[in-house]
């Protein structure tokens, strides 16, 4: 790995673990066992590192979010569960860059560019979720009125965006599996009232897995 990539990689890990505000460029250099001068040769400062990490995130995330917009994830009713699995994919990707979400307001105030990018992502997120809901409606997996569908997509976006902060507030640090699984379960809870009996079995499976997970982690 090139030094530049290593710097980005280590910064992301430190931001996620220690929190972005508590991490300095000196910390990053120490962690990498390089001199601060070497770090400054590659990046002008922490601002640039954060901006680039966000660019990485925006690129990856917008690719992921475009998938259900372009084409339904489930071509027919039989593969409807793929939509739920997709929620895991999105949340896992968010988790990789969770430092952004843990300090969102502060971050967006300091970086106007990131703010713009973040707004784009949120719009894309709700479009993706709306597209999923629309597919489910077309395949008669859910039964809802159009206006309800818009509300549902917004609620899901809201939940998705602030899930990590909420989870940390309630439980401090839990294992990523539990956090992500419960996040998906929460999203499904919103869809559940519109689901037919067939799909409820998936929801119940999700619930059981969650209970087992909690039992395992004690």
């Amino acid at each position: 790995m090139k030094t530049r990539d290593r710097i980005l990689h280590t910064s992301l890990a430190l931001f996620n673990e220690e929190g972005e505000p508590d991490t300095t460029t000196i910390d990053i250099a120490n962690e990498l066992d390089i001199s601060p001068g070497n770090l400054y040769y590659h990046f002008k400062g922490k601002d640039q590192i954060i901006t680039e990490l966000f660019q990485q995130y925006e690129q990856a995330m917008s690719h992921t979010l475009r998938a259900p917009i372009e084409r339904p994830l489930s071509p027919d009713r039989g593969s409807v569960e793929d939509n739920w699995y997709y929620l895991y994919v999105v949340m896992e990707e968010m988790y990789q860059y969770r430092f952004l979400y843990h300090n969102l307001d502060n971050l967006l105030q300091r970086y106007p560019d990131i703010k713009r990018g973040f707004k784009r992502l949120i719009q894309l997120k709700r479009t993706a979720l709306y597209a999923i809901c629309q597919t489910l409606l077309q395949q008669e997996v859910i039964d809802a009125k159009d206006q309800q569908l818009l509300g549902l997509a917004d609620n899901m976006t809201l939940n998705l965006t602030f899930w990590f902060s909420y989870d940390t507030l309630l439980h401090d640090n839990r294992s990523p599996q539990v956090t992500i699984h419960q996040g998906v379960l929460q999203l499904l809870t919103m869809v559940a009232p519109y689901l037919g009996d067939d799909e409820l079995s998936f929801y119940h499976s999700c619930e059981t897995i969650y209970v087992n997970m909690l039992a395992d982690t004690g």
Partner: protein
Amino acid sequence: MSDEKSKVTDKASEIAKNIWLAGVGAYGKAVEEAQGRLEKAMEPPKLFRDLVKAGAALEEDARESTLAARHTVEERINRVRENFHNQRPARIEDLMALHKKVDQLNRKVDQLSKALTEQGVGKTSRSKTHKTAKKSVVAATAVRTRVSKKQTKAVIVARKKTSSGKPATSKRKA
């Protein structure tokens, strides 16, 4: 009168929808396609169209990369599905399907051993095939009594063995 009323409501929800959609912004092709799917029956809202137009510049760039991205999204969905199935509690339907499969497997093994005995094949090859068949039966009965992830794997293994035993028999027949 109620007709009037519902017209107004329709109009209101239409406006709300347009506002919602307009927020989507400049995501070019992807959004347009979504819009196409969402609004097939309806006249596309003008405001939204303009916004899509404004974002068209992004289109080219996004298009190429989305193909590759789609691929990885599907791969990742597959990975999650697999993981989920490992954790998922066994459902009655799953168990029934498994029972059915085991029954089929048993029948196949029976047929196979019957055919072998009838043909009176050479000593060494018979004992070899017999062993495999026996193994599958053992594995199959194990599944029958207690179904778990590991044993499901055993079924698959057993099934593979039976199917690999098959061509050998037909070869001997010929």
